Each structure stands twice: as C-alpha cells, then as structure tokens.
C-alpha cells in the first residue's frame, strides 16, 4: 500500500495570496483532474476558481469573464484544448441532479472545479484533490487545507516546501 500524503495546510493572509496559489497550481492541472472546493460562503472558493480559470485562459492568450456559477450550476470554458468546468452544486439536493448536468463524464474529459461538492454524495470522484477553505485569524486571512491521494503527492509536497512563497 502506498503511503497517502499528509494534508497540506496553507495560510493565505489575503485574497491576493489565494489568487497567487491558484495561478501557481493552474499550469500543472489537466483534463481528468477534479478539484473539490469546500468551505462556507465567502471563504474564497469562487475567488480561487476564478483566478485558476483566468490563469489557464491567459496562458493561451484568452480572457473571459468568470461569473459565479451559483445560479447557472455549471459554467464551461475552453483554454485551448483544455475544457474547464466550474460547477457550483449549492442549489442541488440530490446526487442524481449532478449526474444530469453531465458532471460524471466531465470528471474524465475536463478539468473540473466543483464548489459545494458534498452534494455529489457517493458520486464524488475518489481521485480528487480536496481544498477546504476556512476563515483565518485576520479579517482577510484564510486557511486552506489540501488533501489528495497518491496522484497529488508531488504537488502537495512541493506546496508544503514553499508555502512561504505563496
């Protein structure tokens, strides 16, 4: 049995630090990667997702607005060959509804950022990277806990070593 990586805990003193982390993670992500964004309203989930999506769009010379998917449930983007899904399951009550959105297929064909992932219930992809946003000590500060399986070990180790750079 491989040893699972320890959760990585980062301190994000400002919204800009959250965006910087997203921009740093962005280049290493691809189709089939699923990021589950957890945490209360206002904790920075959408802010993180917006920065990550914009980073991938900018990398191929594109810019688009990245509106909140709370009402739309899913917003999709095309960063070159990479399809990105930004989903917000806040309004859903059953895992069935998430399937109706086509999420299960997207988990394998697109880079997926999923807010309020608990709505997926048993359909949560096992191989996802979970990012839990919590309020930090200061007004703007957030604490982020990243948890993932072996697939994410390298990424998490790298983050843990250079946490002060974020």
């Amino acid at each position: 049995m491989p040893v699972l990586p320890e959760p990585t805990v980062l301190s994000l003193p400002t919204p800009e630090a959250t965006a910087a982390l997203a921009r740093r993670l962005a280049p290493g992500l691809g189709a089939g990667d699923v990021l589950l964004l957890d945490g209360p309203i206002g904790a920075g989930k959408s802010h993180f997702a917006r920065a990550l999506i914009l980073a991938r769009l900018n990398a191929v010379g594109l810019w688009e607005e990245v509106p909140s998917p709370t009402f739309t449930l899913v917003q999709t983007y095309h960063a070159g060959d990479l399809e990105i899904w930004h989903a917000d399951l806040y309004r859903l009550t059953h895992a069935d509804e998430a399937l109706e959105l086509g999420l299960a297929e997207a988990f394998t064909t697109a880079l997926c950022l999923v807010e309020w992932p608990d709505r997926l219930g048993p359909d949560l992809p096992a191989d996802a990277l979970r990012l839990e946003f919590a309020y930090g000590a200061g007004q703007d500060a957030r604490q982020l806990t990243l948890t993932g399986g072996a697939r994410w070990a390298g990424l998490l180790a790298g983050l843990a070593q250079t946490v002060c750079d974020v």
Partner: protein
Amino acid sequence: MGQTITILGLESSCDDTAAAVVRAGSGAGPETGAEILSSVVEGQVALHAGFGGVVPEIAARAHAERLDLCTEAALAAAGIGLDAIDAVAVTAGPGLIGGVLSGVMFAKGLAAGAALPLIGVNHLAGHALTPRLTDGVAFPYLMLLVSGGHCQFLLVRGADDFTRLGGTIDDAPGEAFDKTAKLLGLPQPGGPAVEAEARTGDPARFAFPRPLLDRAGCDLSFSGLKTALLRARDAVAAPQGGLTRADRADLCAGFQAAVRDVLVEKSRRALALYLALGPADPVFAVAGGVAANASLRAALTDLATGLGVRFLAPPLRLCTDNAAMIAWAGVERFRMGHRDGMDLAARPRWPLDRRSPALNGSGRKGPKS
C-alpha cells in the same frame, strides 16, 4: 386591425418549463398591438425557493414531460387549437443542454407534425425584447437585465441587434441578495427578505464598498460586497454574542444601499453611451427579479427621469423566465422572415452580442453573465 400572426412559444432552458401564445399584427413594429393570449409556467415555485434547498427542476426528462402538458394548457387557455398557430418559437439556447435539447426536440416534432414553421430564439433575446411586447418600445433602447443569474447592460438596436455594454464580473445582484439573507439568517428568496429588513435600518452605519466604481466602463462586481457584509456581521456579533434586530436591519440597509449605488452609477454610464446615439424617445428598461426592489427601482427611475429618459420595468411575471417572451421574440423574427429548419441546433453557449468577443463561460443551466 389588419392581418395578425399567432405564435406558440416554448421555454425549457432553465428551472422552469413554459408555453405561451402571443398574437400580434403582422406589420413591422410593436405598435400594431401584441396580446398575450396565454402564458403557462410550471415550476415557478421551485425556482423562487431554489436557494433554500428546494430541488431545482433541471432534469431533461421532467422538461420533456411537462412541455406536452404546458403546450396543451397554453392552447386551451388561449382558446385556440394548433390550426390557429402560425409558427412555433422555441428557446434554442443558451441554457442547460438537457433542457434546451428537450425544448428543441419537442418543438421540431410539433412543427413537423402540424406543418408549421419553426423559429429558434435566444433566451436572452427573449428577455431583452420584452419591453416591446409589454410597452411597444421602439429601437434603440437601453436594457438592464438584473436577476439571480444575470446582470448586464444591453443596447437593443433591433430584434437581432444587441450590444453588450457591460455586466457583472462575478456574482449577479440577485445572488448577492440571496447570500446576504443566508448570512443573516433571513428566509429565501433573499431579495424581499433583505428589502423588508432594510426598511427600518440605517444605511450609513456600515461603510460597505462600492465595487468597481473606480474602473471605467459598465462592468459590475458584487462578490466583494458579500465578504464585506460577512466581516461587518462578525465584527458586530463577536463582542455581543449575536446580532440584534437593529444590527441586522442596518446591515441589510447598508448592503442594499451599496448595490443600489453601484447599479445607479453604472446605469448612468450606460445611459450616457445610449444617449450618445440620439434616440428620439429614449427608454431605459429594467427586467429581472431585482427590479422588484423598491429602493433600487426608485433610484433608477430618478436617474432616468433626471436625464429625460422614460423608465420602464415590465411586470415581474414577464421578467422571470416565461414563454410569452419567447413567443414575442418569435413574432419579431417571423416578421423579419426568419425561419429555422429541422437542423435547428440546441446551443448551450450562445452569446447575444455577436460583435463582441465571447464574454462569458456558457451557462449550462441558464444564460448567465
């Protein structure tokens, strides 16, 4: 009255399934008198309560089942049969793919079976053309779509000619109201709840930001306002162990004032761009649930009136998702000679403004920006 045309409209791109029959003169302008013979919407309750955990009706299957019933009900309420219909108009996007597909497939079947022309309509065009259905407004006019999922300024020059002047770069105001209500323990939908609290509150007690006012143009942002509200709430609640009724009212009043100020200032800028066109009878139309907020509506009315512009807000039932607006957009396209074939495609992503670069990620569930 001269010749008329009667269009059946179908809408299933969002939470609701809807069918409607609209009859209008076959001439070129809206002044020939349009009449909504019927407008049936299923699922409206679920939509309005959608934030509290009520299931949003997104299943394609449910749309498919209801389209049948809605169409029957709309025809019955109009007192006519399919033989009195001149064309079938259907929302072909943008929206949740399953819902849009259901509508387009159903419309194709109906059109083929009854030998009627088929017209694909952009859902956002339906919203944007509603002032012509309700008030016979002439082009060009300025439109502010402001609801749970939309917030954008559109310059409407023709039934197929829309210019997007700006919109939200993150949350829509309706979403901000709903989340504010949630953060303050108020019931959903948040708009009316926050507005009711704000009535007794002091809008000056909390200094909430007015996002993006320092940036040129008509883009808006409401996400930061939510975070500011959260901070203010916690700063007050922590030392005293909770919020008093007055605290909550002040928070709501301060939040509402910030949303209003931002929308008013951005509307001022959009109106300046619009008035530069020199419209003969300038009109500023506001559609969407947020337009029901009395404080916001009064401020926008004052702004428009002060600039010599007629302010107009269609009735709420025609501002939320409905099929009468799709039937009306169908009337406009029918008059322009537009017909679609059996190859009409469902388009989950369909920007209204074809000249501007694609501005938004496509809403799978609704046409949002």
